[in-house]
């Protein structure tokens, strides 16, 4: 059923990685990405990949989930792989057949890029697997808070994300209902052809929009009744708190980063 779609892909757990402060986890993810792009050879990349796989092992997320996270980017992986394979030229020719020539350098770069993308996505997915959407929203609000000085609406952005998370399942359910209601009235929703398909959407979108506006109106009133007045002077039920664990993890990541940089110079 449409209702059962989960937003984000959070797997609740109680591992060390789950317990890390979400703000740190976001920073770690950025560092991990930087790490992958700093690594200039397979040894560096290998170290980073082993590190990420170890993180998965610690988090208790099943390895099957790695494959699931890679599914949507398979075309990108293939595209990058093929492109690099055929268009990178080196001195050594590995294979030559008809108009296709594959150079050793091409094969190496291609493999390197593919491994890099795979580890990158795998690493990033760990963030959403181990932190709830609310934790992430709070973390983003907290990380962006220096931008408040530049009048960037950080709190409003976080509130919008929170409300969106709350209402997406509701609106999905509603779309479902509207579709059924319109079908019952004889709307042809399975029309073929692009224009006809677009036209078929109108009787679904219009009621959906009207109801969304009505909901927004009522929600605003309910929020006012509960004394909502923006981010000024607001406290939070759950305060994000950095613990020793976060700093230890930070240290560990910096170590791995250091090893990768050293490795670049060594070879």
């Amino acid at each position, binding site marked *: 059923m449409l209702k059962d779609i989960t937003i984000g892909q959070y797997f609740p757990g109680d591992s060390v990685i789950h317990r890390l402060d979400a703000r740190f986890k976001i920073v770690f993810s950025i560092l991990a990405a930087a790490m992958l792009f700093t690594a200039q050879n397979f040894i560096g990349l290998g170290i980073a990949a082993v590190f990420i796989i170890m993180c998965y092992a610690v988090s208790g997320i099943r390895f099957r989930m790695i494959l699931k996270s890679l599914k949507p980017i398979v075309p990108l992986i293939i595209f990058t792989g093929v492109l690099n394979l055929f268009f990178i030229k080196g001195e050594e020719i590995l294979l030559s057949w008809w108009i296709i020539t594959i150079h050793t350098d091409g094969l190496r770069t291609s493999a390197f890029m593919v491994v890099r993308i795979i580890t990158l996505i795998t690493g990033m997915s760990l963030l959403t697997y181990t932190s709830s959407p609310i934790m992430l929203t709070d973390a983003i609000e907290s990380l962006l808070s220096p931008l408040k000085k530049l009048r960037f609406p950080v709190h409003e952005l976080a509130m919008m994300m*929170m409300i969106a998370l709350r209402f997406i399942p509701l609106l999905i359910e509603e779309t479902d209902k509207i579709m059924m209601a319109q079908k019952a009235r004889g709307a042809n929703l399975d029309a073929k052809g692009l224009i006809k398909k677009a036209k078929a959407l109108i009787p679904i979108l219009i009621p959906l929009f009207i109801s969304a506006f009505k909901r927004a109106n009522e929600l605003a*009133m309910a*929020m006012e009744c*509960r*004394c*909502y007045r923006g981010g000024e002077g607001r*406290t939070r039920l759950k305060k994000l708190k950095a613990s020793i664990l976060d700093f230890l993890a930070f240290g560990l990541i910096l170590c791995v980063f250091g090893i990768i940089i050293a490795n670049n110079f060594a070879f």
Partner: protein
Amino acid sequence: MEIIKTENLYFDYEIYDDKGNVVEKNPALHGVNLTVQKGEFLAVLGHNGSGKSTLAKHFNGILLPSRGKVFVNNIDVSDDSRIYEIRQTVGMVFQNPDNQIVAAIVEEDVAFALENLGVPPDEIRERIDEAMKLVDIYKYHKHAPHRLSGGQKQRVAIAGVIAMRPMCIVLDEPTAMLDPKGRKEVMGTIKMLNEKGITIVLITHYMEEAAQARRVVVMDKGAIIMDGTPKEIFSEVEKLKAVGLDVPQVTELAYELRKAGVKLPANILNEDECAKELAVILKEGRDLLQ
């Protein structure tokens, strides 16, 4: 002691043109004078468009009077500087539970009002746990609201208001979108809260719910036309019917029997009462009709 008091309250819904000028005024309230005492359980009855929801929205400054005054705990609701004090005193629960739940997790939503008020986290935790236990939704505190039933969702909304520790709760047709089971749950919660000393104003068009209140006010065309105990109100069956309202089924039955000549008291409100009275008559004499 009075908690809500309206003095000669008028309200018009105004329709503006593009330049911000008033093109049309739709009067919704005509000189409402109403006093709600502390600890009271008041039901406001009226059919659609009678102005009962409009009236309710004046009780915590969501709407401000066009003319006249509204006082909450002796504070004028037009006093902008004390509006949050007023909204903390009078909490409000609306019809559709889905549209008043803000957060994607039950306990986060119950905490919403307290977060807005800047309550420290430890105290928030204490107060929301208390509120959730009171309305019996504590076991769902980590759930996503859209997985709960209508009655449960409405109780989450009530908990979110209770957490503010208000003196009064105004409920605007809180059961209109619920199934019978959810309706029963919510009515039970409302009665329990009233017993704990919280003033309840229940806007409704269900006669059976109004019959459970201690005082009933009937509205029609933006004015209060009747005010009294449920027994007093429901004994005037014709007057209620004239403004498009029904009476509880038992009252209707008693009314019809009386019209047919059976000697029944006029103010019967529940089945037990009716059965008892009928039993007495049946025992006493065979000549039911006189």
